[in-house]
């Protein structure tokens, strides 16, 4: 392997990092879209509260507003980690 190859070797695959970050943020923003403006804030405050007790991923909290003939239902789901660690 020449010196040039060495210098150019292994650029980090940043595209795949970008793809993963976008996948998560786009899904998250879509889930609160069209709902009231407070949904994203509600979501992040919930995340903070839950994190006082369980160490969860930021994506583990899903907030959805479902409109069901006349009723609006706020749907919350929190995925707990497998090895549930209390902090």
């Amino acid at each position, binding site marked *: 392997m020449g010196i040039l190859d060495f210098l150019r070797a292994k*650029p*980090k*695959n*940043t*595209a*795949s990092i*970008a*793809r993963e*970050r*976008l*996948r998560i*943020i*786009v899904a998250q*923003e*879509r889930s609160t*879209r*069209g709902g009231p403006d407070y949904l994203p804030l509600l979501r992040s405050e919930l995340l903070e509260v839950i994190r006082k007790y369980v160490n969860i991923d930021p994506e583990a909290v899903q907030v959805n507003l479902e409109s069901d003939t006349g009723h609006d239902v706020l749907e919350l789901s929190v995925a707990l980690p497998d090895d549930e660690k209390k902090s």
Partner: protein
Amino acid sequence: MTEIIVVTSGKGGVGKTTTSASLATGLAQAGKKVAVIDFDVGLRNLDLIMGCERRVVYDFVNVIQGEATLKQALIKDKRNDKLFVLAASQTRDKDALTQEGVEKVLDELKKEGFDYVVCDSPAGIEKGAHLAMYFADHAMVVVNPEVSSVRDSDRILGLLASKTRHAEGGQATVKQHLLLTRYNPVRVEAGEMLSVKDVEDILGLPVVGVIPESENVLAASNAGEPVILDAQSMAGQAYADAVARVLGEERPLRFLEVPKKGLFKRMFGG
């Protein structure tokens, strides 16, 4: 029937004006009567890209405010007599554009028998961008293979689905076309840039075209000739393909691969 196409993106500087100029020119080349309107009030630019900046006398806001007729304000393209430009006003008054005013101008263009009206949106999601998309039948969402642009275009797709006349009426939807521009196959291959498939997967939409990053775009804007007129350039050909697809033709995507043999290899027989 007049079809209104908004060229929009959310993020600034991704290629909306470049795209509007080439889209409008391409549609006119296909024999359609086309008007292209600059909605970027305060930051007129489309006139430069179209090469008609010295012929602007009246603008969009003059027409809305009744200071000029539409006929007086429409600038006929010097290369194609089916193509007309309506320049943005340089006023700093943010309220110069109104929904009623925009509707009035669009209705008049319909009466004049235009086949297409291309609306070059300003960046952002504020009033100008909102009005540019509000009456649209089609949207061309311009996106670069880059995180903030992709995220912003998803935001725009959401607005197109909720904050437009069609969405509010609940009758029809705005037909969405995703245009990926400034694409660099070499960087994609090196894992440094999102690929066509990445962007399609994240946004859940197929692309209507992929425009390569190309130095011909700057040359075209220097000369005031929409890059689609540079039929030798890859960017020009990619725009021509995209316009044909908008008109319903099926064409395979081109210029997505790294050129097999570089100049170096050809010279030295790689």
